[in-house]
């Protein structure tokens, strides 16, 4: 198996980054590096990058910390304001439609008068008995106020929640 590590590589790396290489290292370590591909690669690469790093740090022209801080503050605030005034997303529309469907299904399944009205409308339509049809429509209209109230709650609650959360 190919060797990818040498037990002296940490010593060699330390000597390079501490600027001890090559003058201030043990002659035995120097002799090892001459015959070790791994360690000589470390000397070449680490020596070059470490020296470049020092030069880069002294040459770096970076913005002042306070400037970065205040620009970040302004941007965070602007983004928060944009998020609050953002139009309703497709995800929100989908969630709302799902909630409506669920409530509608619960209502249809649990309401006996709705089932009865639906049944009589069905039979009224199939037999077309005018009197039965009229009475079933009247029963449905009689509950329209209740249904309307339910729809309003379903509409208003998510809207109020959206506005409240969006402003945070």
């Amino acid at each position: 198996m190919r060797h990818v590590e040498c037990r002296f590589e940490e010593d060699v790396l330390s000597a390079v980054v501490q600027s001890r290489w090559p003058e201030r290292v043990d002659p035995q370590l120097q002799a090892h590096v001459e015959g070790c591909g791994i360690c000589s690669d470390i000397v070449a690469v680490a020596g070059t990058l470490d020296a470049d790093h020092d030069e880069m740090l002294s040459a770096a022209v970076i913005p002042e910390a306070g400037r970065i801080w205040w620009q970040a503050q302004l941007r965070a605030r602007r983004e928060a304001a944009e998020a609050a005034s953002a139009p309703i997303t497709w995800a929100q529309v989908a969630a709302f439609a799902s909630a409506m469907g669920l409530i509608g299904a619960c209502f249809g399944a649990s309401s006996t008068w709705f089932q009865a009205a639906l049944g009589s409308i069905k039979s009224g339509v199939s037999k077309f008995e005018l009197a039965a049809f009229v009475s079933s429509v009247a029963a449905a209209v009689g509950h329209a106020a209740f249904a309307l109230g339910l729809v309003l709650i379903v509409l208003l609650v998510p809207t109020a929640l959206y506005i409240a959360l969006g402003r945070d």
Partner: protein
Amino acid sequence: MFRDATYTDLTRTEAAGEETAAFVMDEETFRGFYERTARGLWAYLVRVTGDRALADDLLQETFYRFLRAAATYESESHRRNSLFRIATNLARDARRRSLIRAGSILMGERIENVPSSVDAAVSERNADLSRALANLKPRERAMLWLAYAEGASHEEIAGVMGLRASSLRPMLFRIRKKMAALLGRKPEGGAR
């Protein structure tokens, strides 16, 4: 874009007058952290992207994302690693979006020779390094820089790069060998 915002006393006063944005880190802590890390991060971004102007933009964006992350850190090195991870991801995304003119980086024509130095020997070494780095993949440049310029441990590099620490040693071995050859040594140094 964030970089388009102009910083003046007016905007600063305007910002100060309003409620402080919800960053987990306070300004004093941020200033200290920035002073300790910004130059090193800038050097990393310049060497990984090979583009000084892009590095300037990514530096600001990195610190913004870092502040917005709302994370808490158990140590300075953890915080620093997180910063470099954000920078690494931004540099990768920028490359994917072709903010870097792809051909130039891949061909090694545009890797900047930074910093320009009046010292001829330093300039030459800098040019050699730029040429060598241009022949590595951005990911390889990042790993070498973290290991040998930043002095990061294998665990830290793995965290920044999103790799397994156990895979670092063979990867670094291979990339280091490639880099050494590019810097003018024999292509086949041979392992012991």
